Every structure is written in structure tokens, then in C-alpha cells.
């Protein structure tokens, strides 16, 4: 029989306001094995911890139950306290009477009753606790960054700077991401390419960084410190090592009508292409959907002109397997599709464009060489209407409920730059709210209104109608003057909401990292662990975690890198001792556990057993690799005979808890 001490925390009024903590402490005194029970205002405080430590010594406690907040919050704290008082840290059990009790109940009587029941369950469990010792596992000193946009680039550079190897996997032919398509960056208006391309070149030149461009993550196995990742290098039909990026193939290719994704489809590229001049790696890629040679075997022009023989029509997708200690997700975003927003006539008129298309129209490397011209007739637009929150903060179900965060600022930037370059242009911005928190952000927005005379109108655009004279009729309401407005515009720019890249969901499944309902990756703690996924060894960088602008993305990228460096700097990690264990005498050898194990921690072997009738028999039995097991418990549920058990969460412990609750 254990000698159990029960410690009930008030958590200030967090618990004590809804739970009669003294009654809980009193009620648990009568439970089997309980030799001491008390309450205290803040059990996690130094005084509270000392109370636990002193009681362990004074009463010779062998088990401790703390009725307090979630074990996610302070289990470690109390385990350490118990350990310093000389008992095994795994002899501590937490009864969560805050998140699962006081915070969700209003009635003191029923909350107190529930707190007592939760306490009884924890007492019943700790009766069956056994001391556990954590093992160690080695750390592979190499990191993987998935996504090569500004987030991935910054993370990779920082990790490499600390001396660790880091690989970037980018699905596009070049790294750089969305930032390569942006013209100027707010609030300082420096040119995006001028600040980004040096970082891209740094990546390419850094000997610690390896770039897998035009590649995707195909499979992830393993756990923190020891991931095994399969990377699919898609066939680009060009030998990366031979190609010099001279570009002659992209000039000679006869297929000229491929929509150029870099310019948002507003001009064309060839079937063999280099996305843009500063691409890294600067290597051509053949688009198999358009290449005549790959489609029907008739052409071969690029191969003839290539002076280094880099073209290889027979190239296949290849799989590379690598080991990593940490994985950073930096999969970024895309503007949403505007198919559900017919009222803005996006699909009907060429002159209704998205903000990212507007960036390309004002960029020197864009389809108009940087002159702002209407896509329909190439004329200079005199009246431009910017519509904010297209699909953002949208509760109608067509768009996203969240704020995309970046649109207020880039729209102010667009409006300001337009007025500066073309002072004869009338610029209107329709908004729900203008949100400009950020260093020098509000000043930037005010400059657009006050110095540049941009017409900011609070209200939403109801309808955009293309007219026969080529102009666009914009119907809108001005909520401040309570008027209906009709504006004849030449160009309408929609600030489309942003959403996580589509690849993120399948990636989350592979990584067993959790996501929210909008497919943004969830952080381990929204305030205190914002760059870590709840899955150990998986870190988050950039918009994959939530909408953010470039300065924020770069800070988060560096923060993620710091976390990765902290992990890779360790030689060994302490394993979770709560791992599965197979009772060979009970094991049927049926393989159910092996099939459900997501970590590949279970293997089978034939072993000789002495049977009760003194004969020997060879039986197929399971064994668990404790270094690989993550203690998820899937096997214990799958095992029909109960041979598989989880240390610290054994079947009998859980049954004891259930019994205590049902008593």
C-alpha cells in the first residue's frame, strides 16, 4: 500500500471560487492509502512546492496527488519537486480540477463533487504507479525546413549560422516563395527583390544548406531527434548539375503559350523555363504538361541548343531518404480562389484583379515592365477602386472567418504608390476597419490618407458590373455618410484573403502535427510556445501557423531556428519513460499492435517458452523498441489479449480510475 499525500491547490480564485477546496482535501483524507491531505493557495509557488517536499519527508510519502491545473501546465513542476524530496518523479499524479472542473462549472456544489471524484481517481491511479526511469535517445544534428519562402530561408540561414546542417525542401523550381512576386514592402517601401535575393543567394552558397528545389516531402517517420524523411525530387528533365542557367533553351522553346505563374498568368512563358532572373537554383525546368517532346516525342529543340547537354527527357522522379533531428514547417500561403465572389466580377472582367496581380503589374519584372496598365486594353487606369476584406472576416461561409492581417497595409501601400507615380489617378479604398498595429504602420496608413489623398471609405462594395464602354460600375455603401455610392472605375483591385497552402494538410498528417479548422498549424501554446508544434521536434515558421507580414514572419522564422538550434545542440534527449511494454506470456503474436503503431516501434520474433506442462514451445511475440515508442497507447487498445500495456498508464491503472469514478 502506498502512503499518499494529497495537495489541493486554490490557484488563487481560479479553483477556489468554484470548488470548495477544503472540502476536497477533507473528502480525500478517507481514501485508501491517503495519509496526509491539505490545501494551499498556490501549490506551484515555492512555498507550495516546499509544502509538498516537506510532507514527503515528514510523512514518508511514496505517492503524491496534486489537485490543480492541467498536467500540461505544472506536471513537470511537481515531478521535479517530488524528485528533489527523494521520490521517483513518476509517483506524482495530477487531478485536473481547474480546466476540467472549476473553469467549466458555475455551481459550487457540483464542481466540488466532481473535484472530489477526480481526486479519488488520481488516488486510485497512484496506488498502482511504479517508479519509472527515463532513457535517452541520440539527436541527429541536421534540420529539415519544408518550404523555401522567406520564412524557410530565414530559418535555414539561422540554423546554418549556428553550425548545423540544414536542408530546404521547396516544391517550386526556385526558392523565394511569395516574396519574389511582391514589388515593394511596407512600411519602408524597399524593393522586395533587393532584400530577398541576397538571402536566396546566401542559401545557395552556404555549405551547411542543401536545397531540394522542385521537391516534396513524401513520407515522414520517426520522432524528435530522429526523423527519417523521404523527399521526392520531381523530374524536371534537366540535369541540375550540368545546367548553367544560361537560358538559351527558354528562348528557343517553340511552346510559347504557357501561362506564367510567376506573373499570375498575365503573360506567357515557354514549356521549358526559369521562373525569374534571380531564381535559386538557376536551373531550367521542363513543364511536362506542355512540352511537345514529353507529350508526343516530337521536338527536342531545347536539347539541341543546350551547350552542356543538360536536357534529359528520360529523367524520373527520385526519392531521397535523409535523417533529421528537427523539422520546421514553413509552407506559407496562397490567396484564396475568388470563384465564390461573383459580385466582384473577377471572372468576368480582366480589369478586376487581385492584389498579388496588382503587385506584378507594378513590378519592373512584371508583364507590363512596371507600368500600371489595364490588363484588358493596356490603357492607363484613371480611377482605381481597392476592395478590402474580400473573403476575410467573412461569416457568410464563402470566405474565411479570420482577418488576413496583411491586406490593410499592402492596400495602403498600393494606393500610396499609385498616387505617387500617377498623380492624375483617383484612388478609392473600401474597408470594414483599417487595422494597422505595428511599428510605423499607422503612420504609413495616415500618410496615404493625409499626404497622398487616397479616398478611404468605410463600407463594403456590393457589386462590380462591367459596362459596355469598358469601365467598371462599382456599387458601394458609405457607412459613415450613410450614402449609396456609384463609382465608374477603370480598375478594381481585390484584397483576397490568404489561406494556408493546400499541401499543408497532408503534411500535417505525415508529421502528426495538429491543425486548426482553417488548416493553420496549431502551436504548442499560443503565447508561451508560439513556434513549436505540440508534436515534439516539429517547429512552425511563417504563415503556415497564422496570417502574418514579412517582419513578423522573419522574427518567427528566427525564433523557430533558435528552438531548433537548442534541440540540435543536445547530444541526447531524455525519452518519455511512459512507453509500451509487451507481456510475452500473454502475447498472441497477432500483429495488431504492429499494424497500428505509427512509429514502427514494434517488432516480432519467435521465442522459446517453457509451458505449464513442462514442454517448450516456440511462440511469436511482440517486443517494443523503447527508444522509438512515443507512448501514444494505440497498441494497448488494439491488443486483444491485453498483453500490451503502457507504463504509467497501464490498463489496470485506467480501470482503477474508472472504478474510482463510478464508485
Amino acid at each position, binding site marked *: 500500500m502506498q502512503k499518499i499525500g494529497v495537495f489541493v491547490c486554490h490557484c488563487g480564485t481560479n479553483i477556489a471560487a468554484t470548488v470548495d477546496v477544503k472540502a476536497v482535501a477533507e473528502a480525500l483524507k478517507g481514501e485508501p492509502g491517503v495519509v496526509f491531505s491539505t490545501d494551499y493557495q498556490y501549490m506551484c509557488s515555492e512555498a507550495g512546492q516546499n509544502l509538498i517536499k516537506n510532507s514527503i519527508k515528514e510523512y514518508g510519502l511514496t505517492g503524491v496527488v496534486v489537485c490543480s491545473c492541467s498536467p500540461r501546465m505544472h506536471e513537470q513542476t511537481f515531478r521535479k519537486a517530488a524528485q528533489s524530496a527523494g521520490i521517483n518523479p513518476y509517483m506524482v499524479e495530477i487531478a485536473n480540477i481547474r480546466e476540467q472542473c472549476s473553469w467549466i462549472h458555475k455551481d459550487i456544489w457540483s464542481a466540488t463533487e466532481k473535484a472530489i471524484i477526480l481526486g479519488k481517481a488520481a488516488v486510485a491511479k497512484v496506488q498502482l504507479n511504479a517508479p519509472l526511469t527515463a532513457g535517452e535517445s541520440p539527436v541527429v544534428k541536421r534540420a529539415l525546413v519544408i518550404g523555401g519562402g522567406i520564412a524557410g530561408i530565414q530559418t535555414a540561414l539561422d540554423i546554418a549560422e549556428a553550425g548545423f546542417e540544414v536542408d530546404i525542401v521547396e516544391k517550386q523550381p526556385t526558392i523565394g516563395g511569395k516574396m519574389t512576386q511582391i514589388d515593394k514592402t511596407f512600411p519602408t517601401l524597399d524593393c522586395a527583390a533587393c532584400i530577398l535575393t541576397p538571402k536566396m543567394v546566401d542559401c545557395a552558397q552556404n555549405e551547411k544548406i542543401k536545397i531540394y528545389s522542385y521537391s516534396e516531402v513524401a513520407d515522414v517517420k520517426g520522432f524528435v531527434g530522429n526523423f527519417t524523411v523521404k523527399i521526392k525530387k520531381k523530374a524536371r528533365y534537366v540535369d541540375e548539375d550540368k545546367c548553367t542557367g544560361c537560358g538559351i533553351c527558354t528562348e528557343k522553346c517553340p511552346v510559347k503559350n504557357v501561362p506564367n505563374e510567376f506573373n499570375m498568368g498575365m503573360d506567357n512563358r515557354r514549356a521549358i523555363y526559369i521562373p525569374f532572373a534571380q531564381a535559386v537554383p538557376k536551373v531550367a525546368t521542363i513543364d511536362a504538361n506542355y512540352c511537345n517532346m514529353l507529350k508526343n516525342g516530337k521536338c527536342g529543340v531545347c536539347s539541341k541548343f543546350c551547350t552542356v547537354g543538360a536536357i534529359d527527357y528520360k529523367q524520373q522522379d527520385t526519392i531521397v531518404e535523409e535523417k533529421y533531428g528537427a523539422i520546421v514547417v514553413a509552407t506559407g500561403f496562397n490567396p484564396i480562389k475568388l470563384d465564390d465572389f461573383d459580385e466582384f466580377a473577377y471572372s468576368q472582367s480582366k480589369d478586376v484583379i487581385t492584389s498579388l496581380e496588382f503587385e506584378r503589374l507594378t513590378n519592373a519584372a512584371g508583364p507590363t515592365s512596371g507600368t500600371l496598365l489595364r490588363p484588358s486594353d493596356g490603357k492607363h487606369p484613371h480611377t482605381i477602386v481597392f476592395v478590402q476584406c474580400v473573403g476575410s472576416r467573412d461569416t457568410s461561409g464563402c470566405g474565411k472567418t479570420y482577418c488576413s492581417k496583411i491586406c490593410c497595409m499592402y492596400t495602403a501601400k498600393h494606393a500610396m504608390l499609385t498616387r505617387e507615380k500617377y498623380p492624375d489617378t483617383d484612388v478609392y479604398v473600401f474597408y470594414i476597419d483599417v487595422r494597422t498595429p505595428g511599428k510605423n504602420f499607422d503612420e504609413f496608413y495616415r500618410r496615404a490618407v493625409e499626404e497622398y489623398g487616397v479616398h478611404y471609405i468605410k463600407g463594403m462594395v456590393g457589386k462590380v458590373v462591367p459596362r459596355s464602354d469598358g469601365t467598371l460600375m462599382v456599387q458601394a455603401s458609405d457607412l459613415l455618410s450613410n450614402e449609396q455610392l456609384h463609382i465608374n472605375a477603370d480598375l478594381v483591385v481585390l484584397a483576397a484573403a490568404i489561406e494556408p497552402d493546400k499541401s499543408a494538410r497532408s503534411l500535417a498528417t505525415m508529421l502528426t502535427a495538429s491543425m486548426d479548422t482553417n488548416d493553420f498549424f496549431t502551436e504548442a501554446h499560443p503565447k508561451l510556445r508560439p513556434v513549436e508544434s505540440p508534436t515534439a521536434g516539429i517547429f512552425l515558421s511563417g504563415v503556415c501557423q497564422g496570417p502574418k507580414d514579412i517582419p513578423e514572419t522573419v522574427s518567427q522564422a528566427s525564433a523557430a531556428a533558435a528552438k531548433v538550434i537548442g534541440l540540435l545542440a543536445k547530444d541526447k534527449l531524455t525519452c518519455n519513460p511512459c512507453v509500451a511494454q509487451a507481456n510475452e506470456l500473454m*502475447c498472441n503474436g497477432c500483429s495488431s499492435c504492429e499494424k*497500428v503503431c505509427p512509429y514502427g516501434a514494434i517488432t516480432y520474433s519467435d521465442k522459446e517458452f517453457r509451458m505449464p506442462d513442462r514442454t517448450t514451445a516456440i511462440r*511469436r511475440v511482440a517486443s517494443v523498441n523503447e527508444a522509438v515508442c512515443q507512448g501514444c497507447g494505440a497498441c494497448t487498445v488494439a491488443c*486483444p489479449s*491485453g498483453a500490451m500495456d503502457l507504463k504509467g498508464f497501464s490498463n489496470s491503472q485506467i*480501470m482503477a480510475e474508472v472504478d474510482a469514478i463510478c464508485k
Partner: protein
Amino acid sequence: MQSEMIKRAKELLASGEVARVVGWKAGEFDYDITPGVFTTAEELDSAFLYNDLCEANLSKYMIAQSRKEGKTLVFLKPCDTYSFSQLLKEHRILRENVYVIGVPCDGKVDVDTVKATGLTGICSMTSDGETVTVKTLYGDSTMSKADAMSERCINCKSKKHVVYDELLGEEGDVVADNHRFDMVEKIEAMTPDERFEFWRNELSRCIRCNACRNVCPACSCEKCVFDNEQSGAFNKGASDSFEENMFHIIRAFHVAGRCTDCGECSRVCPQNIPLHLLNRKFIKDINELYGEYQAGENADERAPLNTFTTEDVEPSIVYERGGKQ
């Protein structure tokens, strides 16, 4: 068929290819045919039986038999091969030590079904494939074989052998249009109170003889959780009549996704509890939630409850179905 089977068995015994034969022989009562192990030609001649009364599924015996010295010949009816194949999948039978001869089956006659027609004092039963003749203390009676067959044979799921080394007689096909889920649907349509009442009524008759567990090919654990004092479920199903009910529900959970619906549990139940309905509910749910799946049909196929895919139903499916089923 019986003589053909004896002939083949003798040949295989004589050539030394197999060391023993697992088949059927007469039991205490004439109609109560039981599994038997035969090691000589003489035993086969004198005791081996194969007729419309040979109901027992022999696959589970192969767990122990396949671990003996030498090969074992076993005769399997189509539905037995599903259990056999499932046991192979679970590595319970050593395939290389078994010689399987598939034998045809067009439904077996069941004494409980005959009794249910009102006949008492049954002394013996014989079937010529069409008509069943029942000798009772009170005189002879005949009925068509279809009327004497158990529900599992009327709703036969397959006349095709999924695993064998050799076949005797003609091979049949999977029976797609059986009505084995009709009763499950009826129970599903009940209100929770009616359903509870139904099962309380059925399960309250349980005497915990463990016959269902002992005959079930899916219940092949080295040690059952109910017999294992460390399992936390030890003696759980024995303290009162309600917990006894839980024994059957837990057993159904343990065999979910592995039960081939062979129906042995209900056949051997001395209290005539329709235990197979619990398993069929799971089979029906698996079919509906994860796509059609027949345990044992394909030894290489991954079982839906052991496999995670991104297409799997979300837990919210219970709410989508109104929480009724």
C-alpha cells in the same frame, strides 16, 4: 462426399504427407456430431463422418494441431476457410504444417432449429440432402432441409473457399444477396429502452459457461483478459448479472474487425442467446463507415480497424447519424 473424403485422407496418411486428420465424428447423441482427430485408416473407416449435421467449424483446432509434429489434414467448409484465413493473418496457425481440403456445403441442419418447430424427445436425425427425417420418442417426423437449417446457413455469406490446398466437389460463389443484417436493422430501429430490454432479456439467460468464447476462432488469445488477474478486467464479467452482460459486449469489441461471422457462438450457446447479432452489428457498422469488409476474405488486406487513412470517418459521424445507431 464422405467416402471420397475418407479415401483422400487415407491416401495422405499412407503416403506420410500428413500425420493426422481433423474431421467430424459422432458425439454423445446421434445428431450431435463433434470434431474428431484421426490418425489411422481404421479410425477413419469406423468413425469419420461428413453429412448435413456436421456443423462445427474446425479452423480453431488448427492453432494447436499445426504446432504438433508433422502435418495435419483438415477438412474445411467454405465459411470455415474464412476463419482459417483470419487466423493465418493473425499468425495463429502455422500454415506450412496444415494441409487444407476444401469440402462443399449447402447448409447444415441444426437441432435447435428442429426443436424450435415443436418437436421434443428427439432420438436421431438424418438428412438425404432434401428431406430431414427426425426420429422422436413419439414417432417419426419429416421436414424439408430448408426448414431444419439454422439462420446462419439460410443467410449463407459464401460457398467459396478462400484458402485450400485441394478441393473436393464443386466450388461455389460468394452469396452477395444474403439477408444477414435484417435482424440487426430491426434492433437498430428500436428505441434505446426497447433495445436495452431486448438485450437484457437475451443476455440475462447467460450462465457464463464460456462455450461461446471457447469455440470462437477470433477468441484465440493465449490468455483471455477475463482470466488474467493483471488485466484489470479479471472477474469483471462475473460479479453480477449486469456485468455478465458486459462480458458479451466486451467480447464483441475484442473480436470486432476480426470476426468472420461464422456464427459458432450462437450455435454452441446452450441458452440459445443470439450472440452473433452483436458481432454482426460491428460488421455492419464497419461496412457502412469504412467500406465493405469481410474479415478473413483476403489474408493480405489490412483490416479497417487496424489501419489509419486520411479518409477515415471522423468521430462526429455519430452526430451526423443523429446519435441513434
